[in-house]
């Protein structure tokens, strides 16, 4: 018992002091915040100066109104027009291909930001193209579409002899607001982004925690095997004490990490007034984190202790990463249909249970019996995995040279 704690203490203190751990402690939340905040910052950023947009209009009817409305409606913060529209060609008889080639050259030379092409000579077949070097700027496309839609609609209404102003009067402005219903049926102002973001955040945190400390676990076993420290270790304590000590020590490490990230999370949400998750689900998630961590600790030991080189360890780790990443890939479909049967089925695969729960809890709280069932499943799985890992570890920790074959490892597990 004392020796197990000595091992745990050593593993914890030696790893907690490493640069890799300290960097990870700060870098991971930093990256996660950067990943979630920066893109929206970039997207919603307003233009700083006017953009010149060319128009090639075979119908000859659109270009002027379009230019006028674009320039009036969208303005920069200093009051200038956001877009300067330059009609390039407007006669129905133009050489379209030549005009397009000219305009392309202008765009390439950064004379214009991009250009619209109205191919139809009449407005009956209105296909409008927007060509630009920066097609990622979808805001400009949305604005062009909106303005052109209005103009075309007005012209069509006018051609039927009605008053074009009707368009504005009859148009319905509608925004569908996403409202998440909590269990009690209470309204909860949660946007799609927020639910998605928090589900994603918890999965990533669990994923990173398992992978980093799992890797540390495997690496420390391999180091001890390769420099034969393990001989001294197993002559001073039993392999079971050694393994248990390692699991406890590295668990301490993982929970230090999670605790620290949690504090950052609380600080961030207090600062910006966002609740990422309520206390109840957070505690529940915590339990799944611990269960998931312990299960994977056993898996990493079982899979890692027979290995003899870092390269092999990386290979095995990458397989485990692939399993762990499945729920992250499924985040989108899960958001769309949180009640899907396949989602529930996947939750009962022990390798996926914790991450699936980390995904499901923020989206829609699973029923009580599901929570009880998955926790029971995890406890049984942890027990089985620890026993199996212990059997492998006991033998594998002393084997050097060639890594044993899978069949051999399975035999160790069965014969114990």
């Amino acid at each position, binding site marked *: 018992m004392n020796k197990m704690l*000595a091992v745990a203490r050593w593993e914890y203190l030696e790893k907690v002091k490493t640069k890799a751990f300290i960097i990870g402690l700060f870098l991971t939340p930093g990256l996660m915040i950067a990943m979630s905040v920066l893109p929206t910052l970039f997207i919603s950023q307003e233009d700083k100066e006017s953009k010149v947009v060319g128009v090639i209009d075979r119908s000859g009817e659109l270009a002027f109104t379009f230019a006028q409305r674009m320039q009036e409606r969208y303005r920069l913060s200093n009051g200038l027009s956001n877009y300067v529209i330059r009609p390039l060609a407007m006669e129905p008889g133009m050489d379209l291909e030549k005009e397009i080639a000219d305009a392309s050259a202008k765009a390439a030379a950064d004379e214009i930001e991009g250009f619209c092409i109205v191919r139809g000579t009449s407005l009956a077949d209105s296909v409008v193209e927007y060509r630009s070097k920066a097609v990622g700027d979808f805001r400009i496309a949305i604005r062009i579409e909106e303005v052109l839609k209005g103009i075309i609609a007005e012209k069509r209404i006018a051609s039927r002899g009605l008053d074009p102003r009707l368009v504005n009067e009859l148009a319905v402005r509608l925004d569908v607001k996403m409202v998440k219903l909590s269990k009690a049926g209470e309204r909860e102002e949660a946007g799609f982004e927020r639910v998605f973001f928090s589900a994603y955040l918890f999965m990533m945190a669990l994923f990173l925690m398992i992978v980093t400390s799992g890797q540390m676990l495997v690496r420390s076993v391999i180091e*001890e095997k390769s420099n034969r*420290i393990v001989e001294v270790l197993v*002559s001073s304590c039993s392999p079971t004490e050694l393994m248990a000590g390692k699991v406890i020590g590295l668990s301490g490490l993982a929970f230090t990490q999670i605790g620290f990230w949690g504090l950052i999370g609380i600080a961030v949400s207090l600062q910006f007034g966002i609740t990422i998750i309520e206390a109840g689900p957070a505690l529940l998630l915590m339990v799944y984190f611990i269960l998931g961590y312990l299960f994977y600790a056993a898996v990493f030991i079982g899979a890692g202790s027979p290995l003899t080189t870092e390269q092999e360890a990386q290979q095995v780790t990458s397989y485990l990463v692939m399993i762990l990443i499945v729920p992250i890939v499924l985040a989108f479909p899960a958001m769309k249909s949180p009640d899907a049967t396949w989602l529930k089925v996947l939750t009962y695969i022990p390798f996926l249970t914790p991450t699936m729960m980390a995904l499901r809890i923020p989206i829609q709280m699973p029923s009580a019996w599901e929570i009880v069932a998955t926790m029971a499943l995890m406890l049984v799985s942890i027990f089985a995995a620890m026993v199996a890992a212990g059997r492998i570890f006991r033998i594998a920790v002393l084997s050097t040279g060639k890594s044993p074959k899978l069949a051999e490892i399975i035999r160790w597990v069965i014969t114990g």
Partner: protein
Amino acid sequence: MLKVRNLRKEFSTVLAVDDVSFEVRRGEVFGLLGPNGAGKTTTIRMVLNILQADGGEITYDDRHFGDHTRDIVGYLPEERGLYKKSKLLDTILYFAGLRGMHHGKAKAEAYRWLKRFALLEHAGRKVEELSKGNQQKVQFITAVIHDPVLVVLDEPFSGLDPVNQILLKNILLELKQQGKAVIFSTHQMDQAEKLSDTLCLINRGRVVLGGTVRDVKKSYGKNSLHVEFDGDGAFMENLPGVQRAIMYENSAELELGPSVKPRELLPLLNAKVELRKFELLEPSLNSIFILVVGGAGESTPGKTEEVTV
């Protein structure tokens, strides 16, 4: 203290240790000798319960290996290794703790040993910043800090300079005086000869010689001529009456036939080389080793001459 009876270990098809028996008492230095690959390390690993024996019995004061044994043995493995990134003192304290040593006592002992090995100033440094020899000293400390009854040292002298070899030798003799049982393995026979009270020579997994050093030597007679000289001694092997010659750089050990008189050889030797020493002695362990193992050992001439203490 330690009794090993009919120990056996098989690795897939190779019989690494075959029917090995020996006994180590308190206050005794026991040399486990043999060429590389003879089975020394495998035997040691079984003694320390690192490997499971396929047959035979190992007892410590008539008890089998168990939790009580773990804290009374100390072990220096042949392949040296410590946690490179960890600090010296931390490392020593960790291993002491693993042997069930109380933290406060471990700290005091650690300082005492570090001082003795002139490593005190490095106590706060990382292991990787030390020289190989110093790392080895640290590892030796981890093997003895908890005051074990049985100290097992696998090739303790390899990699140490002559000064530190003397230091280590003195410490081993001290441990012996304190009543500890010391096992050390080596393939350097001169070390074994100077240090061990009893020995066991293993070759290809089997015990080929065993007993006290004196008995072993006596059983090989007293007809070994030790000479030291300047000049080319290659001719000595072919002198009449010399059954076998073990040549070193500037000395030789000549095994004489039963009826050969040393003084008959003296003029023959004198004629060709400048003699500095001419002495009739028991054969050295080295020559016995070469005789028994058949020269298959690693102990090449010249290497044994490295250190004269």
